[in-house]
Each structure stands twice: as structure tokens, then as C-alpha cells.
């Protein structure tokens, strides 16, 4: 039943605005793939084109062995879940779920048992006679999901399905959707701007920006091996610091980081560092540089620190209190950066070009015990 979704060179403009620009990716059969990006990145438009609700200007869409590019939404037989539920407000929960079966002329007894099955599945068995406006947001979205699943679609498309819900319900529904997907195994494409949601639910993430694909990879690689500065900055909290490459290393007013690959000597570069990858010590280490602690906020078991480098740049660190060694505001200490991702600021440098085959960032290591990872992430 489950088929893979394959999208090739998808392009769509609205007037002069190019909403989707040459987007290609594959969502593997039976898995959840997330389309992650800020608002206006074109992710919803991609989803709507796959559903047939928008017509692409160029490119092709395949589901399983079938080409869908010029089919009507009715012919595609996909399940679509809208951010604002889009339930039929004049129909009961039952009638909503039954709708897709009715219009496809499913025999009545079959439709009945299928609706019962789905209402049980989404935990809304006793609510069949209610109208959508008598349900909470989370319940409505579960009805919408049951309605989309009723005709047994090959593929489930979810457009910011938790976007209209409050944080608590969102968490709960996310876990619930995860369990449901494990049970059903229907190929799902999830559009979201919430990186946590994407990393938690999806087995593959497509990061989009300004209508283009920035990176397609497993969640752990999106986080640990960002292909572009945008991905490094968008996924997870990150510090961005700038420096110049000297003697094969990035210098922040101290013998900081070495082994900069792909970035030319003398080039300006930017490095992205996660707050928990900033290590502090009282004494200077082999590749550390001096910083002063400007602010320390104790959150119980971790502290957030604001550090100023000798050249004036600021880094934020987040460290467990037990590793802090009593470092306080006003202290001058030595910082050591773990897993920094360096990108050249020089436009001509291949590392900064966001081409499809451009090399990934040079991953820097300041401690010898870390394996040297030369991340070569290219987009598929």
C-alpha cells in the first residue's frame, strides 16, 4: 500500500515570486519525511503540489510507480491534513470520516465498519455524533487525520498539522502521531517550521529555504553535519562567530581551531558552534582562546553563560553546573570549541556556494580525542 514520493525539479512561481525553485527529493515508502523550513520557504507549496491543489510550472511528481504530475487531486488518492483541520462543519464526526468513503461509493456496511475502526484508532469512538465545533483543537485534528486515512490513501500529507495547537497538546499529538505511524506505516510527508518536531518524528528531513532545498539527510546528520550555514543556524541553537583562516586554522585572538578544510588560506570564515559545545577551563589548553564571562544565569542543573572574546564577539554557552568549576561572572577563562562547523564567507569558495554538489562544511576539532570528521554532505 505504501509508495515512495519522488519529486523532481519542482518549480512554481506566483507572479514574480518564485515560491519553489527546482526542488527534488524522495520520501521513502513507509517512513515519515519532514519538510522543514521557515515560513515562506515554499514547503507548503511543495506539499500542495504533491496533493494536486497547486499546479507546478515545471518538474514531476511520482508516487510509487505512478506519475501524478498532471492528475487532479481526486485521482491522486492521497490523504491531506490541513493546519486548520478543514473539517466539514455541517457534518458530524462520523459523517466527516465517512465522506471520503461515500463519494467513492464504498458499500454502506464496509464504510460503517471502516469508520468505526478509524474512530477507535484515533480514540474518538464516543464522539461520532458530535459536530466539529464541539471538539477541542487536538480532537479536531485527530478527526481530520481519521478522515484523511479512511479511504486508505497511499500517502499521507500533513501541512503543519500541529501548528494551530498549544504547546502541550502539540507535544501529546506528536507522540500520538508517532505511535500511529508505527502502527500503520503509511508513507508520510510532514511540513513543519518546528525543527524539534521534524527531528523527533521524521526519519529523513528536507530543509528548505527560499524555495530551494538546503539539505536532505537523516535528522541526526541535519543536526551534526549541516551542509550549509543556513541549516547550521536554523536547526538547533547555534553561536555564529567570524574569523580569518590563518595557517590552516581559524583564529579568534588565540591559537583557536585548526584543520580547516575546504576553506582557503586568508579567507574570512564563519563558524557555528552549539552552546553545549563550548567548553571552559581555568587554564589555557592546547587550542583554547581567552574569553571573559559577562553573564551567568543558573537554570538549576545547567547554566547559560555569555562570553566575550578578545576581538569583541559574543558566544553563548550552556553547560552543566558540575562542569563549570565554580566559574562566575567577571572571570577570565579559556574556551575550547567542540564540533565547530566552518563555512567560508568568500563567495568564490566552494564551501559557501550552495550548489547541489558543493562540499559540506569543514568540521573542526579542537580536542585530540575527537575523531576527525570531514563532513562531506552532498544533496541527493
Amino acid at each position: 500500500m505504501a509508495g515512495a514520493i519522488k519529486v523532481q525539479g519542482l518549480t512554481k512561481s506566483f507572479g514574480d515570486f518564485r515560491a519553489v525553485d527546482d526542488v527534488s527529493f524522495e520520501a521513502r515508502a513507509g517512513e515519515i519525511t519532514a519538510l522543514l523550513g521557515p515560513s515562506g520557504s515554499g514547503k507548503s507549496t511543495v506539499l500542495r503540489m504533491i496533493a494536486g491543489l497547486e499546479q507546478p510550472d515545471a518538474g514531476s511528481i511520482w508516487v510509487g510507480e505512478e506519475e501524478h504530475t498532471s492528475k487532479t487531486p481526486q485521482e491522486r488518492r492521497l490523504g491531506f491534513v490541513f493546519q486548520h483541520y478543514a473539517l466539514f462543519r455541517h457534518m458530524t464526526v462520523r459523517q466527516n470520516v465517512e465522506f471520503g468513503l461515500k463519494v467513492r461509493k464504498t458499500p454502506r456496511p464496509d464504510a460503517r465498519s471502516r469508520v468505526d475502526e478509524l474512530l477507535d484508532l484515533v480514540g474518538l469512538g464516543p464522539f461520532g455524533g458530535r459536530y466539529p465545533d464541539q471538539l477541542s483543537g487536538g480532537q479536531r485534528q485527530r478527526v481530520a487525520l481519521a478522515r484523511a486515512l479512511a479511504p486508505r490513501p497511499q500517502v499521507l500529507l500533513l501541512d503543519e498539522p500541529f501548528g494551530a495547537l498549544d504547546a502541550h497538546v502539540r507535544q501529546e499529538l506528536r507522540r500520538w502521531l508517532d505511535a500511529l505511524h508505527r502502527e500503520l506505516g503509511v508513507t508520510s510527508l510532514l511540513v513543519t517550521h518546528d525543527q524539534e518536531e521534524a527531528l523527533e518524528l521524521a526519519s529523513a528531513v528536507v530543509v528548505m529555504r527560499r524555495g530551494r532545498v538546503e539539505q536532505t539527510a537523516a535528522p541526526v546528520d541535519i543536526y551534526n553535519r549541516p551542509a550549509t550555514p543556513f541549516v547550521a543556524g536554523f536547526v538547533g541553537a547555534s553561536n555564529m562567530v567570524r574569523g580569518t583562516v590563518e595557517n590552516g586554522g581559524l583564529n579568534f585572538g588565540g591559537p583557536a581551531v585548526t584543520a580547516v578544510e575546504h576553506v582557503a588560506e586568508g579567507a574570512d570564515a564563519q563558524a557555528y558552534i552549539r552552546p553545549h559545545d563550548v567548553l571552559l577551563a581555568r587554564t589555557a589548553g592546547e587550542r583554547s582562546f581567552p574569553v571573559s564571562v559577562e553573564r551567568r544565569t543558573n537554570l538549576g542543573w545547567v547554566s547559560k553563560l555569555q562570553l566575550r572574546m578578545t576581538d569583541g564577539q559574543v558566544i553563548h554557552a550552556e553547560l552543566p553546573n558540575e562542569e563549570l568549576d565554580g566559574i562566575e561572572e567577571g572571570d577570565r577563562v579559556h574556551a575550547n570549541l567542540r564540533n565547530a562547523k566552518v563555512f567560508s564567507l568568500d563567495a568564490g569558495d566552494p564551501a559557501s556556494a550552495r550548489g547541489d554538489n558543493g562540499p559540506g562544511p569543514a568540521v573542526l576539532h579542537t580536542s585530540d580525542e575527537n575523531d576527525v570528521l570531514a563532513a562531506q554532505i552532498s544533496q541527493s
Partner: protein
Amino acid sequence: MSTTQARERPPQPHASPATPRKFPRRVHRERLVARLLVAVALAYVLVLLLGPLAGIVYYALKSGLGVVGQTISQPDVQHALYLSFLIMLITVIVNTVFGVMVALVLARDRFPGKHLASALVDLPLAVSPVIVGLMAVLLFGRGGWFEPFFAARGIQVIFALPSMVLVTIFISIPFVIREVVPVLQELGLEEEQAAWTLGASKAQTFFRVTLPNIRWGLLYGIALSAARAIGEVGAVLIVSGAIEGKTETATLLILRFFDQFQEQQGYIVALTLAAFSIVMLIGIETFKRKRTREAH
């Protein structure tokens, strides 16, 4: 710690019922103003709406039901009522079908000149019906642009049913459209798109999703245009020629009765028309209430 807090708290639960409730003067004044406004609104409705209605009922029934029966059974009265309802029926059907189509276009599509089209829809409200009648005469009357076309086919337009229907349709165009457009805009496209992704054809989507969602707006629009159609005088007067027993509608008949000092009969016909409109509005209101209660 907790004991000191408890001691500090004054024993309020005993104190508050002992002191009599006193509203500040400001609250009293606000309540008075609110009641006054309600009274004014009710008086307005009573005097301007129910007053005239009561007058008609009183004068129509003054001489007893016998006169009412006698008047209603007159052939020219029956024909006039029949003609009025026939025109209303055709008008409502045409305006419902085309009104929904126009409303869909105005609410959903983008095209150059949309604002102009939207403004044009209101034109019949701005133009006096008498002028509408004159326009029809200019187009279809002797020497009019369209007269040769219909004359050649032997179709009598002016001084006959076609022109009466035509001007009535023109005059009641805005009602369905004006009621349905905002409902469609509020509804948005998502429910329809959801229906498509579930496999519903465009026709299924319209009849199962769009139409049920706009039904109350549509019903009100239909009621308003029906009321407007049945009450039309000016335009119909000009295009029909008010030929007794032929092109005389109920409203034209009322005019004639008054001209001929038969006020009594005029009131009776007027009451018949008013009763129809009131029954229609009450019917829609109760139907709507019943359905909404079912839905909750």
C-alpha cells in the same frame, strides 16, 4: 510560615454577607441607560413595523370575513395574485442559480475589473425601479434595440409577462449575491480542497460541502429577493401597462383599488401579500433554529 500567613488573613467569609450590597451610583446610572436604550429600540420596532401592520389587519378585517372571501374570489384578484406569485417564482429561481454563480466568482476568483463588477451588482439598489422600467421599454419597446429581434419571432415582451419578469429579476439581483458572498469569503477554500483530496468531484463538493455551508445566507437572500419581487410596483407598472386581468399584478391591483375608492379591497389584497412575506420569514427563522439546535 504557613501558620503566620493564616493568622494574617482577616476572617472575611463572615464579614462579607453582613455588609449590605451597595452598588455605586455609576452602576445604577449605566443600568438605567441600558434599559432606556432597550425601550427605545422596542418602541421603534413597534411603532414603525407593527403599527402599520396592525392598521392593515384592522382595515382589511373591519367588515368581516365575508368581504375578505368575496374579494379573494374575484377573478381579477385571483389572477393578480397568481401573476405576482408566478413572477416571484421565476425571479427567485433565476436569481438563486445565477446569484450563487456570481457570488462564487466574486468571492473566489481574481480578475481585472472585479471591483467594478462588485459595484455593478449593487446598481439595482441605487436606481429607481421606475427608471429600470423605462430602460426596459427603451430596449424592448417600439423602436427599441431588441424589439425587431423579438417582433420577428412573434414574441411580445413589453406589456407582457417577459418584460415584467425581466425587470423584477433586475431589481432583485443584489440580494442573493450580497448575502452569499460574505459567507463564502468567511468559509474559505480549505473545506472544498479537503473534499477534493478525499475524492469528491467538483459537483459533489459543491452540493455536499459548499451548498450546506452557505444555505442560511442563501435562504435569507432568497427570502429577501422573493419579498422584493412580490412587492415590486414601479418598474412593473411601466413595462406591463397594468392591463386588468392580463398584466396586472397584486401590487398594481392594490393601486387600482385605491384609485377607484375601493380601499377595503385594497387592504385585503395588501394583507394577503404581507401575510405571505411574514409567514416566509417566520418559516425560515424556525427552520433555522430547529436545524441549529440539532447541530448542537
